[in-house]
Protein backbone atom coordinates (compact mmCIF):
# COMPACT_ATOMS: atom_id res chain seq x y z
CA UNK A 1 0.00 0.00 0.00
CA UNK A 2 1.50 3.29 -1.10
CA UNK A 3 1.77 6.31 1.05
CA UNK A 4 0.15 8.65 -1.47
CA UNK A 5 -3.51 9.60 -1.40
CA UNK A 6 -5.93 9.68 -4.31
CA UNK A 7 -4.77 13.15 -5.27
CA UNK A 8 -1.10 12.34 -4.72
CA UNK A 9 -0.78 14.14 -1.39
CA UNK A 10 1.16 12.93 1.62
CA UNK A 11 -0.96 12.03 4.67
CA UNK A 12 -0.12 15.28 6.46
CA UNK A 13 -0.27 17.54 3.44
CA UNK A 14 -2.82 20.30 2.89
CA UNK A 15 -4.36 21.05 -0.47
CA UNK A 16 -3.33 24.21 -2.28
CA UNK A 17 -4.46 27.33 -0.45
CA UNK A 18 -5.62 30.59 -1.94
CA UNK A 19 -6.79 33.52 0.19
CA UNK A 20 -7.82 37.00 -0.90
CA UNK A 21 -9.30 39.82 1.12
CA UNK A 22 -11.62 42.61 -0.01
CA UNK A 23 -13.19 40.83 -2.98
CA UNK A 24 -16.74 42.20 -2.79
CA UNK A 25 -17.47 45.85 -3.47
CA UNK A 26 -20.66 46.34 -1.46
CA UNK A 27 -19.89 44.30 1.64
CA UNK A 28 -18.19 46.04 4.55
CA UNK A 29 -15.67 43.20 4.60
CA UNK A 30 -15.13 40.17 2.43
CA UNK A 31 -12.76 37.38 1.56
CA UNK A 32 -12.30 34.47 -0.78
CA UNK A 33 -10.75 31.25 0.47
CA UNK A 34 -9.85 28.07 -1.33
CA UNK A 35 -8.50 24.68 -0.27
CA UNK A 36 -7.89 22.58 -3.35
CA UNK A 37 -11.21 22.47 -5.18
CA UNK A 38 -13.33 23.75 -2.34
CA UNK A 39 -13.97 27.49 -2.59
CA UNK A 40 -16.09 29.93 -0.65
CA UNK A 41 -16.68 33.66 -0.42
CA UNK A 42 -17.62 35.36 2.83
CA UNK A 43 -19.22 38.78 3.09
CA UNK A 44 -19.77 40.82 6.25
CA UNK A 45 -22.19 43.68 6.77
CA UNK A 46 -21.99 45.62 9.99
CA UNK A 47 -21.99 46.25 12.76
CA UNK A 48 -25.30 47.72 11.70
CA UNK A 49 -28.82 48.28 12.98
CA UNK A 50 -30.71 45.10 13.75
CA UNK A 51 -33.84 44.12 11.83
CA UNK A 52 -36.04 42.54 13.12
CA UNK A 53 -35.65 44.49 16.34
CA UNK A 54 -36.32 41.47 18.51
CA UNK A 55 -32.99 39.96 17.44
CA UNK A 56 -31.27 42.89 19.13
CA UNK A 57 -29.30 42.39 22.34
CA UNK A 58 -28.92 45.30 24.72
CA UNK A 59 -25.34 44.64 25.73
CA UNK A 60 -23.64 43.18 22.72
CA UNK A 61 -23.71 42.83 18.96
CA UNK A 62 -25.39 39.71 17.58
CA UNK A 63 -23.42 37.72 15.06
CA UNK A 64 -25.84 36.33 12.50
CA UNK A 65 -24.37 33.69 10.28
CA UNK A 66 -25.73 32.14 7.13
CA UNK A 67 -23.82 29.36 5.41
CA UNK A 68 -25.19 28.51 2.00
CA UNK A 69 -24.14 26.18 -0.78
CA UNK A 70 -24.67 27.42 -4.32
CA UNK A 71 -26.84 25.00 -6.30
CA UNK A 72 -24.00 24.43 -8.77
CA UNK A 73 -21.41 23.80 -6.05
CA UNK A 74 -22.01 20.06 -5.95
CA UNK A 75 -21.97 17.53 -8.79
CA UNK A 76 -25.66 16.85 -8.38
CA UNK A 77 -27.45 20.16 -8.20
CA UNK A 78 -28.41 21.09 -4.65
CA UNK A 79 -31.78 22.71 -4.24
CA UNK A 80 -31.55 26.38 -3.33
CA UNK A 81 -32.80 27.46 0.08
CA UNK A 82 -32.03 26.36 3.59
CA UNK A 83 -31.87 22.78 4.68
CA UNK A 84 -31.07 21.08 7.95
CA UNK A 85 -27.42 20.63 7.13
CA UNK A 86 -26.84 24.29 6.31
CA UNK A 87 -28.79 25.32 9.41
CA UNK A 88 -26.53 23.19 11.59
CA UNK A 89 -23.38 24.38 9.85
CA UNK A 90 -24.42 28.04 10.20
CA UNK A 91 -24.83 27.43 13.93
CA UNK A 92 -21.46 25.77 14.48
CA UNK A 93 -19.68 28.37 12.37
CA UNK A 94 -21.18 31.16 14.42
CA UNK A 95 -20.12 29.46 17.64
CA UNK A 96 -16.64 28.92 16.24
CA UNK A 97 -16.11 32.63 15.49
CA UNK A 98 -17.82 34.21 18.50
CA UNK A 99 -14.96 33.70 21.01
CA UNK A 100 -12.65 36.14 19.20
CA UNK A 101 -15.05 38.97 18.44
CA UNK A 102 -15.41 41.94 20.79
CA UNK A 103 -19.19 41.82 20.57
CA UNK A 104 -19.66 44.02 23.63
CA UNK A 105 -18.20 47.03 21.81
CA UNK A 106 -21.25 47.32 19.57
CA UNK A 107 -24.37 46.73 21.65
CA UNK A 108 -27.72 46.71 19.85
CA UNK A 109 -26.19 46.01 16.47
CA UNK A 110 -25.94 43.04 14.16
CA UNK A 111 -22.88 41.73 12.41
CA UNK A 112 -24.26 39.82 9.43
CA UNK A 113 -21.99 37.18 8.01
CA UNK A 114 -22.88 35.38 4.81
CA UNK A 115 -20.83 32.58 3.39
CA UNK A 116 -21.44 31.18 -0.04
CA UNK A 117 -19.78 27.93 -1.01
CA UNK A 118 -19.12 28.16 -4.72
CA UNK A 119 -17.54 24.79 -5.22
CA UNK A 120 -17.68 21.88 -2.80
CA UNK A 121 -14.96 19.27 -2.59
CA UNK A 122 -15.26 18.39 1.11
CA UNK A 123 -14.26 20.44 4.17
CA UNK A 124 -16.67 23.15 3.08
CA UNK A 125 -17.31 24.35 6.61
CA UNK A 126 -13.55 24.70 7.15
CA UNK A 127 -13.11 26.81 4.04
CA UNK A 128 -16.18 28.81 5.04
CA UNK A 129 -14.72 29.62 8.45
CA UNK A 130 -11.33 30.57 7.00
CA UNK A 131 -13.02 32.99 4.61
CA UNK A 132 -15.29 34.32 7.34
CA UNK A 133 -12.42 35.18 9.71
CA UNK A 134 -10.75 37.22 7.01
CA UNK A 135 -13.98 38.94 6.03
CA UNK A 136 -14.62 39.98 9.63
CA UNK A 137 -11.12 41.42 9.95
CA UNK A 138 -11.52 43.16 6.59
CA UNK A 139 -14.75 44.76 7.80
CA UNK A 140 -12.92 46.32 10.73
CA UNK A 141 -14.74 44.19 13.31
CA UNK A 142 -12.52 44.20 16.42
CA UNK A 143 -11.10 40.72 17.01
CA UNK A 144 -8.70 39.07 19.42
CA UNK A 145 -7.27 36.78 16.78
CA UNK A 146 -8.28 35.02 13.58
CA UNK A 147 -10.12 31.70 13.74
CA UNK A 148 -8.72 29.05 11.47
CA UNK A 149 -10.28 25.76 10.43
CA UNK A 150 -9.17 22.46 9.00
CA UNK A 151 -10.25 18.82 8.93
CA UNK A 152 -8.43 15.58 9.58
CA UNK A 153 -9.64 12.00 9.35
CA UNK A 154 -9.01 8.40 8.55
CA UNK A 155 -8.89 6.70 5.16
CA UNK A 156 -8.07 3.03 4.83
CA UNK A 157 -6.99 3.00 8.45
CA UNK A 158 -4.49 5.79 7.85
CA UNK A 159 -4.70 9.21 9.48
CA UNK A 160 -4.83 12.09 7.00
CA UNK A 161 -5.02 15.85 7.02
CA UNK A 162 -7.53 17.95 5.01
CA UNK A 163 -10.01 15.51 3.56
CA UNK A 164 -10.88 16.05 -0.09
CA UNK A 165 -14.06 15.02 -1.89
CA UNK A 166 -13.33 11.53 -3.07
CA UNK A 167 -11.71 10.73 0.26
CA UNK A 168 -14.69 11.98 2.19
CA UNK A 169 -17.18 9.55 0.67
CA UNK A 170 -14.79 6.60 0.89
CA UNK A 171 -13.18 7.56 4.16
CA UNK A 172 -13.91 6.16 7.59
CA UNK A 173 -13.73 9.24 9.73
CA UNK A 174 -14.04 12.99 9.31
CA UNK A 175 -13.14 15.42 12.05
CA UNK A 176 -13.32 19.15 11.28
CA UNK A 177 -12.08 21.64 13.87
CA UNK A 178 -11.81 25.39 14.25
CA UNK A 179 -8.89 26.75 16.22
CA UNK A 180 -8.12 29.94 18.16
CA UNK A 181 -4.35 30.04 17.78
CA UNK A 182 -3.42 32.58 20.50
CA UNK A 183 -5.33 30.72 23.17
CA UNK A 184 -4.70 27.25 21.72
CA UNK A 185 -8.39 26.51 22.05
CA UNK A 186 -10.74 24.55 19.86
CA UNK A 187 -13.87 26.47 18.98
CA UNK A 188 -15.49 23.92 16.65
CA UNK A 189 -15.25 20.17 16.88
CA UNK A 190 -17.34 17.61 15.11
CA UNK A 191 -16.74 13.99 14.30
CA UNK A 192 -18.33 11.35 12.09
CA UNK A 193 -16.83 7.89 12.13
CA UNK A 194 -15.32 5.28 14.42
CA UNK A 195 -12.18 5.70 16.49
CA UNK A 196 -10.82 5.25 19.98
CA UNK A 197 -9.62 7.81 22.46
CA UNK A 198 -5.94 7.24 21.71
CA UNK A 199 -6.36 7.67 17.97
CA UNK A 200 -8.64 10.67 18.27
CA UNK A 201 -5.86 12.55 20.05
CA UNK A 202 -3.60 12.01 17.05
CA UNK A 203 -6.32 13.11 14.65
CA UNK A 204 -6.99 16.29 16.60
CA UNK A 205 -3.25 17.06 16.81
CA UNK A 206 -2.98 16.60 13.07
CA UNK A 207 -5.88 18.96 12.46
CA UNK A 208 -4.28 21.57 14.73
CA UNK A 209 -1.04 21.35 12.76
CA UNK A 210 -3.03 21.96 9.58
CA UNK A 211 -4.70 24.96 11.20
CA UNK A 212 -1.34 26.45 12.15
CA UNK A 213 -0.23 26.31 8.52
CA UNK A 214 -3.46 27.83 7.23
CA UNK A 215 -3.22 30.58 9.86
CA UNK A 216 0.00 31.82 8.28
CA UNK A 217 -1.73 32.06 4.90
CA UNK A 218 -4.62 33.99 6.43
CA UNK A 219 -2.23 36.48 7.99
CA UNK A 220 -0.41 36.92 4.69
CA UNK A 221 -3.67 37.58 2.90
CA UNK A 222 -4.55 40.37 5.32
CA UNK A 223 -1.17 42.04 5.02
CA UNK A 224 -1.22 41.66 1.24
CA UNK A 225 -4.28 43.84 0.97
CA UNK A 226 -2.26 46.86 2.00
CA UNK A 227 0.80 46.13 -0.02
CA UNK A 228 0.97 48.67 -2.81
CA UNK A 229 3.35 47.67 -5.58
CA UNK A 230 2.21 50.44 -7.87
CA UNK A 231 0.52 53.63 -6.87
CA UNK A 232 -2.83 53.71 -8.69
CA UNK A 233 -3.71 56.72 -10.85
CA UNK A 234 -7.18 58.16 -10.91
CA UNK A 235 -8.04 58.70 -14.53
CA UNK A 236 -9.92 61.79 -15.63
CA UNK A 237 -11.97 61.51 -18.79
CA UNK A 238 -10.89 63.94 -21.49
Amino acid sequence: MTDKRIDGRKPDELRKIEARVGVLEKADGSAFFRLGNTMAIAGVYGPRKVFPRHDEEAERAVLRTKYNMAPFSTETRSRPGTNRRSTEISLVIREALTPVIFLNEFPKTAIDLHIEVLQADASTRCVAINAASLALADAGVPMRDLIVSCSAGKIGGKLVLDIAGKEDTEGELDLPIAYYPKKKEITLLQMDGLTNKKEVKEIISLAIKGCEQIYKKQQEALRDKYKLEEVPEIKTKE
Partner: protein
Amino acid sequence: MSDEFVMEEKEEESKKEAVPETVPEEAPKRRLVIPGDLLGSGIAGHGAYEENGKVYSKFIGLAEEKNSLFFVIPLSGIYNPKRGDGVIGKIEEISFSKWIVDINSPYQAVLPLNEAVDEFIDLTKTDLTRYFDYGDIIFAEISTVTKTKNVQLSMKNRKCRKLRGGRLIKVTPAKVPRIIGKAGSMVEMIKELTGTQIVVGQNGIVWVKGENEGIATEAILLIEQRSHVHGLTDQIKEILEKKLSHTGKPKDNIENKEVI
Protein backbone atom coordinates in the same frame (compact mmCIF):
# COMPACT_ATOMS: atom_id res chain seq x y z
CA MET B 1 -9.90 79.49 8.30
CA SER B 2 -10.43 76.09 9.75
CA ASP B 3 -13.90 74.62 9.48
CA GLU B 4 -13.44 71.33 11.23
CA PHE B 5 -12.23 69.77 14.44
CA VAL B 6 -8.67 68.80 13.93
CA MET B 7 -7.28 65.68 15.46
CA GLU B 8 -3.66 65.42 16.47
CA GLU B 9 -1.78 63.71 13.72
CA LYS B 10 1.55 62.01 14.17
CA GLU B 11 4.45 61.92 11.75
CA GLU B 12 3.91 59.42 9.00
CA GLU B 13 6.72 56.92 8.99
CA SER B 14 5.80 53.47 8.12
CA LYS B 15 6.22 51.08 5.30
CA LYS B 16 4.72 47.65 5.37
CA GLU B 17 6.81 45.08 7.13
CA ALA B 18 6.33 41.56 8.43
CA VAL B 19 5.33 41.46 12.07
CA PRO B 20 7.59 39.20 14.08
CA GLU B 21 6.35 37.06 16.97
CA THR B 22 8.11 39.29 19.49
CA VAL B 23 8.41 43.02 19.01
CA PRO B 24 11.94 43.76 17.74
CA GLU B 25 14.14 46.20 19.63
CA GLU B 26 14.10 48.85 16.95
CA ALA B 27 10.59 48.55 15.56
CA PRO B 28 9.53 51.65 13.63
CA LYS B 29 7.00 53.79 15.40
CA ARG B 30 4.17 52.82 13.07
CA ARG B 31 3.63 49.54 11.33
CA LEU B 32 0.91 47.53 9.69
CA VAL B 33 -0.66 45.05 12.10
CA ILE B 34 -3.50 42.56 11.95
CA PRO B 35 -5.83 41.23 14.66
CA GLY B 36 -3.89 39.24 17.22
CA ASP B 37 -0.49 40.76 16.40
CA LEU B 38 1.70 41.36 19.43
CA LEU B 39 2.41 45.07 19.89
CA GLY B 40 4.53 44.94 23.04
CA SER B 41 4.30 44.93 26.81
CA GLY B 42 2.38 47.76 28.37
CA ILE B 43 -1.03 49.36 28.29
CA ALA B 44 -3.68 48.91 25.64
CA GLY B 45 -5.04 52.08 24.06
CA HIS B 46 -7.66 52.36 21.37
CA GLY B 47 -7.67 49.49 18.92
CA ALA B 48 -5.61 47.22 21.16
CA TYR B 49 -6.28 44.82 24.01
CA GLU B 50 -4.18 43.54 26.87
CA GLU B 51 -3.71 40.02 28.11
CA ASN B 52 -1.18 39.04 30.79
CA GLY B 53 0.71 42.27 30.44
CA LYS B 54 1.11 41.95 26.67
CA VAL B 55 -0.78 44.15 24.24
CA TYR B 56 -2.26 42.88 20.98
CA SER B 57 -4.00 44.50 18.02
CA LYS B 58 -7.76 44.27 17.54
CA PHE B 59 -7.71 45.44 13.94
CA ILE B 60 -5.95 45.52 10.61
CA GLY B 61 -4.39 48.91 11.04
CA LEU B 62 -1.39 51.03 11.85
CA ALA B 63 0.10 50.46 15.27
CA GLU B 64 1.75 53.18 17.30
CA GLU B 65 3.33 53.40 20.68
CA LYS B 66 3.75 56.24 23.11
CA ASN B 67 5.40 55.57 26.46
CA SER B 68 4.25 51.94 26.60
CA LEU B 69 0.74 52.90 25.53
CA PHE B 70 -0.02 50.94 22.39
CA PHE B 71 -2.81 51.82 20.05
CA VAL B 72 -3.95 50.90 16.57
CA ILE B 73 -5.62 53.05 13.94
CA PRO B 74 -7.88 50.68 12.02
CA LEU B 75 -7.79 50.81 8.24
CA SER B 76 -11.47 49.90 7.96
CA GLY B 77 -14.58 49.75 10.08
CA ILE B 78 -17.72 51.64 10.93
CA TYR B 79 -17.96 54.78 12.99
CA ASN B 80 -18.33 54.23 16.74
CA PRO B 81 -19.62 57.54 18.16
CA LYS B 82 -17.37 59.33 20.64
CA ARG B 83 -18.01 62.34 22.81
CA GLY B 84 -16.43 65.48 21.43
CA ASP B 85 -16.33 64.31 17.82
CA GLY B 86 -17.49 66.71 15.14
CA VAL B 87 -19.79 64.82 12.80
CA ILE B 88 -21.77 65.49 9.65
CA GLY B 89 -25.29 64.12 9.74
CA LYS B 90 -28.57 64.18 7.91
CA ILE B 91 -31.89 65.01 9.54
CA GLU B 92 -33.96 61.82 9.42
CA GLU B 93 -36.87 62.45 11.70
CA ILE B 94 -38.43 65.43 13.39
CA SER B 95 -40.03 64.82 16.73
CA PHE B 96 -41.82 67.14 19.16
CA SER B 97 -38.76 68.77 20.64
CA LYS B 98 -35.87 67.15 18.86
CA TRP B 99 -34.42 65.99 15.59
CA ILE B 100 -33.18 62.45 14.90
CA VAL B 101 -29.98 62.53 12.88
CA ASP B 102 -28.31 59.87 10.76
CA ILE B 103 -24.61 60.04 11.53
CA ASN B 104 -23.42 57.14 9.37
CA SER B 105 -23.35 54.78 12.31
CA PRO B 106 -25.53 51.94 13.54
CA TYR B 107 -26.40 54.35 16.33
CA GLN B 108 -28.78 57.18 15.66
CA ALA B 109 -28.16 60.54 17.19
CA VAL B 110 -30.57 62.93 18.81
CA LEU B 111 -30.34 66.71 18.52
CA PRO B 112 -32.51 68.19 21.25
CA LEU B 113 -34.11 71.56 20.60
CA ASN B 114 -32.25 73.35 23.36
CA GLU B 115 -28.92 72.20 21.96
CA ALA B 116 -29.69 73.49 18.51
CA VAL B 117 -31.40 76.80 18.95
CA ASP B 118 -30.55 79.59 21.36
CA GLU B 119 -33.75 81.55 21.38
CA PHE B 120 -36.87 80.56 23.24
CA ILE B 121 -39.28 78.62 21.10
CA ASP B 122 -42.96 78.12 21.68
CA LEU B 123 -43.38 74.55 20.52
CA THR B 124 -47.13 74.91 20.16
CA LYS B 125 -46.70 77.64 17.61
CA THR B 126 -43.45 76.76 15.89
CA ASP B 127 -42.71 74.17 13.26
CA LEU B 128 -39.29 72.70 13.90
CA THR B 129 -38.70 72.34 10.20
CA ARG B 130 -38.07 76.08 10.19
CA TYR B 131 -34.72 75.34 11.71
CA PHE B 132 -33.77 71.95 10.30
CA ASP B 133 -35.89 70.10 7.80
CA TYR B 134 -35.89 66.48 6.62
CA GLY B 135 -32.79 65.82 4.59
CA ASP B 136 -30.86 68.85 5.84
CA ILE B 137 -27.16 68.28 6.36
CA ILE B 138 -25.64 69.58 9.55
CA PHE B 139 -22.24 69.69 11.18
CA ALA B 140 -22.66 69.03 14.90
CA GLU B 141 -20.70 67.95 17.94
CA ILE B 142 -21.39 64.78 19.92
CA SER B 143 -22.10 65.95 23.43
CA THR B 144 -22.88 62.62 25.09
CA VAL B 145 -22.68 58.90 24.38
CA THR B 146 -24.24 56.71 27.05
CA LYS B 147 -23.13 53.16 27.81
CA THR B 148 -26.07 51.86 25.83
CA LYS B 149 -24.97 54.00 22.87
CA ASN B 150 -27.62 56.70 23.01
CA VAL B 151 -25.97 59.59 21.22
CA GLN B 152 -26.77 63.22 21.79
CA LEU B 153 -25.67 66.08 19.57
CA SER B 154 -25.18 69.75 20.15
CA MET B 155 -24.86 72.69 17.77
CA LYS B 156 -23.64 75.08 20.43
CA ASN B 157 -20.02 75.04 19.28
CA ARG B 158 -19.55 77.96 16.90
CA LYS B 159 -18.20 75.64 14.23
CA CYS B 160 -21.55 73.83 14.02
CA ARG B 161 -23.94 74.84 11.30
CA LYS B 162 -26.18 73.71 8.48
CA LEU B 163 -24.24 72.77 5.35
CA ARG B 164 -25.93 74.01 2.22
CA GLY B 165 -25.19 72.89 -1.31
CA GLY B 166 -21.93 71.18 -2.13
CA ARG B 167 -21.56 67.44 -2.14
CA LEU B 168 -20.96 64.71 0.41
CA ILE B 169 -18.36 61.98 0.31
CA LYS B 170 -18.42 58.87 2.44
CA VAL B 171 -15.03 57.57 3.56
CA THR B 172 -13.84 54.99 6.04
CA PRO B 173 -13.99 56.78 9.42
CA ALA B 174 -10.58 55.44 10.32
CA LYS B 175 -9.05 57.36 7.42
CA VAL B 176 -10.30 60.74 8.62
CA PRO B 177 -7.06 61.67 10.41
CA ARG B 178 -5.17 61.24 7.14
CA ILE B 179 -7.61 63.41 5.28
CA ILE B 180 -7.22 66.14 7.88
CA GLY B 181 -3.47 65.75 8.13
CA LYS B 182 -1.09 66.90 10.86
CA ALA B 183 -2.54 70.12 12.33
CA GLY B 184 -4.93 70.24 9.38
CA SER B 185 -2.11 70.40 6.83
CA MET B 186 -3.62 67.98 4.30
CA VAL B 187 -7.14 69.36 4.15
CA GLU B 188 -5.92 72.98 4.21
CA MET B 189 -3.70 72.22 1.26
CA ILE B 190 -6.61 70.81 -0.73
CA LYS B 191 -8.86 73.74 0.16
CA GLU B 192 -6.24 76.25 -0.87
CA LEU B 193 -5.34 74.64 -4.16
CA THR B 194 -8.91 73.91 -5.24
CA GLY B 195 -10.54 76.97 -3.70
CA THR B 196 -13.22 74.88 -2.04
CA GLN B 197 -14.84 74.78 1.36
CA ILE B 198 -14.32 71.43 3.06
CA VAL B 199 -15.73 70.12 6.32
CA VAL B 200 -14.50 66.75 7.58
CA GLY B 201 -16.69 64.79 10.01
CA GLN B 202 -15.02 62.29 12.33
CA ASN B 203 -17.81 59.93 11.30
CA GLY B 204 -16.40 59.50 7.82
CA ILE B 205 -18.57 62.05 6.02
CA VAL B 206 -16.84 64.89 4.20
CA TRP B 207 -18.57 67.95 2.73
CA VAL B 208 -17.04 69.77 -0.21
CA LYS B 209 -18.29 72.89 -1.93
CA GLY B 210 -16.83 75.01 -4.66
CA GLU B 211 -16.11 75.20 -8.35
CA ASN B 212 -13.49 72.44 -8.20
CA GLU B 213 -15.57 70.17 -5.98
CA GLY B 214 -14.88 67.24 -8.25
CA ILE B 215 -11.12 67.52 -8.12
CA ALA B 216 -11.14 68.02 -4.37
CA THR B 217 -13.31 64.91 -4.11
CA GLU B 218 -10.88 62.91 -6.23
CA ALA B 219 -8.06 63.97 -3.96
CA ILE B 220 -9.91 62.95 -0.84
CA LEU B 221 -10.78 59.54 -2.27
CA LEU B 222 -7.17 59.07 -3.29
CA ILE B 223 -6.05 59.81 0.27
CA GLU B 224 -8.50 57.21 1.51
CA GLN B 225 -7.02 54.63 -0.83
CA ARG B 226 -3.43 55.41 0.02
CA SER B 227 -3.82 56.31 3.66
CA HIS B 228 -1.00 54.08 4.76
CA VAL B 229 1.54 55.43 2.27
CA HIS B 230 4.58 57.50 3.22
CA GLY B 231 4.85 61.08 1.97
CA LEU B 232 1.20 61.25 0.95
CA THR B 233 0.73 65.01 1.42
CA ASP B 234 3.34 65.83 -1.21
CA GLN B 235 1.95 63.21 -3.60
CA ILE B 236 -1.55 64.65 -3.35
CA LYS B 237 -0.24 68.18 -3.77
CA GLU B 238 1.53 67.16 -6.95
CA ILE B 239 -1.51 65.41 -8.38
CA LEU B 240 -3.75 68.38 -7.59
CA GLU B 241 -1.37 70.89 -9.14
CA LYS B 242 -1.21 68.79 -12.27
CA LYS B 243 -4.99 68.41 -12.51
CA LEU B 244 -5.64 72.09 -11.91
CA SER B 245 -3.14 73.34 -14.45
CA HIS B 246 -4.16 70.73 -17.02
CA THR B 247 -5.87 72.32 -20.05
CA GLY B 248 -6.22 75.52 -18.07
CA LYS B 249 -9.74 74.65 -16.98
CA PRO B 250 -10.05 71.95 -14.36
CA LYS B 251 -12.39 69.17 -15.34
CA ASP B 252 -14.86 67.87 -12.89
CA ASN B 253 -15.57 64.34 -13.96
CA ILE B 254 -15.88 62.24 -10.90
CA GLU B 255 -19.29 60.92 -9.96
CA ASN B 256 -20.40 61.42 -6.41
CA LYS B 257 -18.98 58.49 -4.54
CA GLU B 258 -21.82 58.47 -2.10
CA VAL B 259 -24.50 61.08 -1.79
CA ILE B 260 -26.42 60.63 1.36
